[in-house]
């Protein structure tokens, strides 16, 4: 195996294992969920008589939803699987090429007699192979689950779906590389590609509700990804398009990379941005004056782009969900009937034991922003914040420098924690403003109180897991994989909440899940400030206190 490609694969092995585990868990979870649904005759009858198009706001195609293939297409293949694999390839591509360039490692590689094209293509190939492994894990998991839950999926369909997912990931990996080679910065690479992915997904998901979007939607890779739907119809023109697009984008990225000046951190800014230098310098001195007032401000500042990115994404999603409401309100009765026919356990897995609520505006908006995507994004945001501000600073040795100033470790860590908490609050604030605007504009009459309460719950859920990361980091030391452990705990407790709703045996255990404290039995927007939110707050405070009190007693490593 070529050396650089092999090393890239080796470097990604932990990520592949982690994401693979998540994908397997998801497949089992969704398979189980489907069997529960299928066993309800009432539900099946109802689905077959439903006006089509009504449910598209939930990503559900009512024509095929009652088959496993239709169900998995809407939940697994348009929502969770792309989220996982795109997050993986975008961060892997940015790390392998742009971050290594910034660190000077590409310089080192290229001091050997290997061409730039080879370095670039081997690294990209390594990322692509790792993504293929993930797609293969998903495919294998589905093929194993298929007979167990009697899902009647076709083997070629599952293989085609895996292939389509992989090709989709290659398109966005190539976009990451283009954004990165163009700007020379790994943050930009990930940010641009991530935003494009989110936009493409939005346009494709909501095109059926907004006819105006339809022409644009055909340009979204997500449209090609499911046209034809590989799970039922096998691969076809759409998948071919994905492959061709990925190839062309990769060729462009390769050409750009061959021509660019490699920028290491010590080198001066690339020529393309130099015209902004005088203004930048002025801004920098202003920034310095503001930042030099301690760890709290610096942490908030460092997270500013993420705040806009993640907050903006969540806010946008919220507004879109509100805008969908008037369309649905006309069919509210039909929808309510449908929902009552749904097996209640399915809703319970998403934290709704009163499924009738989904046909209220509160339920609708909650279903996407506050329950499906919101919690995942906010937990990722907070844990990443803690990882950057503390875990990574320690391993980089930056914490040594900060601590060489006469301030106690407790103060520094407390300030950093407050900084992360403050930036989380900002994300929630953006989301809340969007929800308030949506509430006014679409006259859904949710009220300020409930919107604020739901935002508070979501934020507290994030802070809980952030504090958990801090505590693990402070107790376990810098070499202990605090972020990974947190991710596993978050995934496990999320599943515990869902499965606890399904089985009576696991129901008592469910109350220990932070996700249950947040989701409860009602959509967050419907219920106001719940007492269980205090559990999240208390948990965050206790874990934060553990972290701050333990950090004084251990060695700081680099």
């Amino acid at each position, binding site marked *: 195996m070529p*050396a*650089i490609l092999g*090393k890239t694969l080796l*470097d990604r092995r932990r990520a592949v294992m982690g994401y693979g585990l998540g994908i397997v868990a998801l497949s089992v979870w969704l398979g189980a969920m489907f069997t529960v649904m299928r066993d309800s005759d009432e539900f099946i009858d109802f689905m077959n008589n439903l006006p089509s198009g009504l449910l598209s706001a939930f990503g559900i195609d009512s024509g095929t939803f009652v088959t496993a293939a239709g169900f998995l297409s809407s939940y697994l293949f348009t929502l969770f699987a792309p989220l996982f694999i795109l997050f993986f390839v975008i961060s892997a591509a940015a790390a392998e090429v742009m971050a290594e360039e910034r*660190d*000077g*490692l590409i*310089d*080192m*590689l*290229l*001091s*050997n*007699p*290997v*061409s730039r094209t080879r370095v670039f293509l081997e690294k990209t190939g390594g990322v692509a192979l790792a993504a293929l492994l993930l797609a293969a894990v998903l495919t294998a998991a589905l093929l194993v689950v298929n007979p167990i839950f009697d899902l009647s999926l076709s083997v070629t369909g599952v293989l085609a779906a895996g292939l389509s997912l992989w090709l989709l990931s290659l398109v966005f990996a190539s976009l990451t590389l283009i954004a990165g080679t163009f700007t020379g910065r790994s943050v930009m690479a990930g940010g641009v590609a991530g935003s494009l992915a989110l936009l493409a997904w939005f346009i494709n998901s909501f095109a059926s509700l907004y006819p105006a979007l339809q022409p644009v939607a055909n340009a979204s890779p997500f449209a090609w990804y499911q046209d034809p739907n590989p799970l039922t119809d096998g691969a076809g023109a759409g998948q071919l398009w994905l492959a061709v697009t990925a190839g062309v984008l990769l060729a462009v990225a390769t050409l750009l990379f061959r*021509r660019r*000046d*490699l920028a*290491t*951190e*010590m*080198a*001066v*800014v*690339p*020529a393309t*941005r*130099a*015209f902004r*230098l005088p203004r930048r310098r002025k801004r920098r001195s202003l920034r310095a004056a503001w930042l030099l007032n301690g760890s709290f401000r610096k942490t908030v500042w460092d997270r500013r782009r993420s705040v806009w990115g993640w907050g903006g994404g969540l806010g946008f999603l919220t507004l879109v969900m509100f805008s969908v409401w008037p369309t649905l309100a006309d069919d509210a009765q039909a929808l309510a009937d449908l929902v009552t026919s749904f097996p209640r356990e399915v809703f319970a897995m998403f934290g709704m034991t009163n499924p009738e609520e989904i046909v209220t505006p509160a339920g609708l908006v909650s279903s996407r922003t506050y329950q499906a995507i919101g919690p995942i994004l906010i937990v990722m945001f907070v844990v990443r914040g803690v990882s950057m501000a503390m875990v990574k600073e320690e*391993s980089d040795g930056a914490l040594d420098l900060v601590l060489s100033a006469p301030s106690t470790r407790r103060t520094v860590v407390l300030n950093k924690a407050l900084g992360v908490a403050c930036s989380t609050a900002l994300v929630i604030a953006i989301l809340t403003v969007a929800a308030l605007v949506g509430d006014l504009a679409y006259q859904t009459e949710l009220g300020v109180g409930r919107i604020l309460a739901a935002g508070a719950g979501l934020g507290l859920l994030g802070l809980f897991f952030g504090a958990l990361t801090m505590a693990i980091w402070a107790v376990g030391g810098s070499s202990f994989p605090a972020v990974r452990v947190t991710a596993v705990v978050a995934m496990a407790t999320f599943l515990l909440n869902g499965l606890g709703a399904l089985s009576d045996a696991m129901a008592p255990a469910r109350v220990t899940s932070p996700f249950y404290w947040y989701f409860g039995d009602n959509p967050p927007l419907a219920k106001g400030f719940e007492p269980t939110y205090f559990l999240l707050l208390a948990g965050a405070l206790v874990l934060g206190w553990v972290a701050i009190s333990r950090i004084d007693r251990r060695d700081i490593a680099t």
Partner: protein
Amino acid sequence: MSRAIETSGLTKYYGDTEGIVDLHLAVDVGEVFGFIGPNGAGKTTTIRLLLNFLKPTAGSASIFGLDIDQDSLAIRSRVGYLPGDLALYPSMTGREFLLYFSRLRGIDTAASTVTLAERFDLDLDRRIKEYSKGNRQKVGVVNAFMHEPELLILDEPTGGLDPLMQQEFAELLAEVRADGRTVFLSSHYLPEVERVADRVGIVRQGRLIDVDTLSGFRSKVQSNLSIKFGSAVDPAEFASIEGVTVIDLLDGGTLLRLSIGGSQKAVIATASARDVLTITSEEADLDEVFLSYYGSELHPDPPG
């Protein structure tokens, strides 16, 4: 003699910022060339241009007669590189890193790796993130030398090495020169260069100011001589020698103090024709010469 490195008008701008401007430089095969200048003078830019990490704004350069852009691959197979800001993969061991890089070169360097590691007292089986700064630098040194390249491009190579290891490194360079191989050594630290270099180029604010041998630079230094004679002498006789200024004449015309730019030979010849008792030379430190090139505030006009 053939050229190892030859640049002609090599220029790199980063937008409006000067990296290196109009560099004309020739390094012969078999010499150790010191490239010195203060931080931010353009040393690293020059090196990264030579290795094709950066594309020149203007001008061209060749290494062993091969074009740095067109023939970069052929060049890099003959070059060993040690960057000033060394980057390594932290989760690899030293041995893994060197193995990885030798595979990229497509050659087996196991034997020379072990020899070099022993020579620099480097434990190859620890992870790079566990190494101290000096040990990390040793991995970089081994990586640059392990394939016995014809040209070594070294950017501040002894940073982080202790004096013993610096000594070892200087010996290694001496061996390289004895083999007839070439070294391009960049540094802001004079003793690092002074110990090994045949010729030195001084670069400041993106421009090459002067190139000369070390003795050439020494000869540009103003040195002071105090000559004690048995009997009074005529200072005009010395003042007429080129480059010589009489500072003063003391002790009834028997103690002459002179300032000499360049060689002292003519002065000593003239003095020895008289009744010389002692000659005391106060030679200026080489450091001072280079400082005069470096700092614009201390010496507005560099000598030479």
